[in-house]
């Protein structure tokens, strides 16, 4: 019988993480607030010039515009340039045990203080109930990837960016959805803390915490919980 191409690859993980202490040290909340503000600014800048695409384009189109704009902002936003080297879309990465070699998070932010092997991952999702882009999809096709160790398994934080085209909000949709799932057994999302607004942030961003149960390959411990920063950007009424 042919062997599945999805099998753990210890050598891949060992090569990637050699000399690293996993999980990596957490990022400071202040840095993450700044990054959230820049993501928000990139969107607002785009809205001024690419409104039509932003209001009707596919997720990939939006991600592409965000990547370009975030890189362009490195030229003009001194604070952003201090934190990030560049942003890449769909950069390939491996899963926590090397089973998958071609995982492609939507956006990877390469930080100036961190090895390029471990970017800050931003997974992006459209929220539009009319097109069946629901909060459930946001969690199943997005959040779950962090919990399973497909994305961001070496780090302790990641972003989820929602392009909201209906009236959905974190408080009205995401929080109740995760609360309800937490009451079921098993809770797929292993929610440790429901989304809470980040105080003192310039933008509407909330943080949830999710346990991760996988173990690092060749090590006796796992990564612990991951903090997911949810940034939901509402599109203006069309």
């Amino acid at each position: 019988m042919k062997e599945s191409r999805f099998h753990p690859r210890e050598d891949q993980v060992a090569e990637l993480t050699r000399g690293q202490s996993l999980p990596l040290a957490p990022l400071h909340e202040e840095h993450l607030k700044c990054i959230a503000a820049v993501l928000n600014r990139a969107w607002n800048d785009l809205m001024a010039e690419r409104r039509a695409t932003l209001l009707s384009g596919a997720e990939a189109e939006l991600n592409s515009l965000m990547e370009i704009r975030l890189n362009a902002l490195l030229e003009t936003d001194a604070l952003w340039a201090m934190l990030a080297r560049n942003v890449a879309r769909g950069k390939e990465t491996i899963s926590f045990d090397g089973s998958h070699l071609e995982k492609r998070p939507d956006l990877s932010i390469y930080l100036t203080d961190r090895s390029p092997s471990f970017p800050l991952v931003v997974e992006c999702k459209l929220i539009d109930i009319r097109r069946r882009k629901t909060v459930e999809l946001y969690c199943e096709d997005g959040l779950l990837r962090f919990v399973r160790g497909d994305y961001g398994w070496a780090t302790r934080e990641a972003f989820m960016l929602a392009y909201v085209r209906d009236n959905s909000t974190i408080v009205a949709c995401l929080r109740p959805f995760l609360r309800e799932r937490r009451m079921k057994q098993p809770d797929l999302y292993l929610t440790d803390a429901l989304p809470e607004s980040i105080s003192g942030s310039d933008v509407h961003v909330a943080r949830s915490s999710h346990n991760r149960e996988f173990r690092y390959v060749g090590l006796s411990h796992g990564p612990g919980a991951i903090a997911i920063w949810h940034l939901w950007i509402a599109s203006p009424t069309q």
Partner: protein
Amino acid sequence: MDVSNAETVTSDLAIHRPEILKILFRGSQLDLEAYDRLISRRLPTLDAYWRAQFGTSRKRPKFAGNGYQKLRKSSRVRKKGDGRPGVSASYLHQLPELTPEAMQTLLVDVSRLPKFSLERIHDPRPRELFRGPLLIVHEAPPAQTARIRAAVADQDVLFSESHYGYSANENPQGRLLVRYLALLLGSRPALWHALMVSGKFGFEREVIEKFAIDKIPVFPFDDFSAAERRKIERLFDDLAEENTEKAWGPVDDWVASLYGLRPRDLQVIADTLAYNLPFADNRKQAQTVPTAPQIKLFCSTLESELKPWAQRTGKDIQVLPVQLPLASPWGVVRVGHVPRSTAREAVQDWREIMRVADRLAATEIVLPDVATGCLWLARLNQARYWSTSQAKLAARRITWEQVDFLVGLGNR
């Protein structure tokens, strides 16, 4: 630990991008970022461009190569030769021969060159290599200019093995092409690129091997508009008339723009070439005590880099040099909010802190001072630690490692 050489390179990175080791050896994280910006342009190398234009012969690019070698003791006697070591050089006789003085200008005045008359040379070199219009590159960049020495000869010229030549005789636009390449290779970004990627230059040798010259990225000449070609003529003529640093300035800016580099990248390149070239003069300059204007520039750069953080807290930030009460190999600056009073704040423990730092062979001390609400930054009193690039790197480090201090600025 030298703060200017304390980057972490993962094994994964070293495997996939081995050039990083050399880049961080001679440069810094800022150089690596500029290099990444440059290679993201996916420009062809000089070698690839030349091959595409002129073709190859025996797997080597045509009309390009080292100059002739003089007869030496090791020159062999050829089986089908005349029974004497080396080869006859008569086919090169009467060619004007390049002199070191002639390479001081960008356009070689062939009429002032002596005629070549050696009887024999070590190995034959193709006659086509010496046909004008020619780009000639000296293998050893002069320490005082921090530029690859390149020149153009519109007529045939012979050059020795210390030079690399590129004859554009077969190209209808050859005259302008070699002028363009002379500007490009003579620019600061070109020497910086060679320093970053050469396996020999800046590692074990002070000369640049042809391989490193050939790896320099080239914006395709054919893609230039008529206006840009006129610009090449103008820039070249200005430099041919007066080969000064002032005249090179616009060339550096122009090449940087072709490479997709930013003005701040050019500053990084200037700092790296000033302090990290492998020449004795540069090493000496790197170790000298920084001047007052250098320290002032360091402070103003650090201040402007940190300003966005201060603005988040609604306060101003100020970076000021500190006069130490004792003779010291360290220089200190104070980073903090603008003081309300003129009373001088001071750290009493400097002698002990610096004693420990010296024992650890550290080159930087960062000390957040809760009592005075500022942060003391001490660095070895050598010019290489007080450049603009170093100020930017220090600001970046403070941003990542002292964020509580930066956020707390608003509390005072």
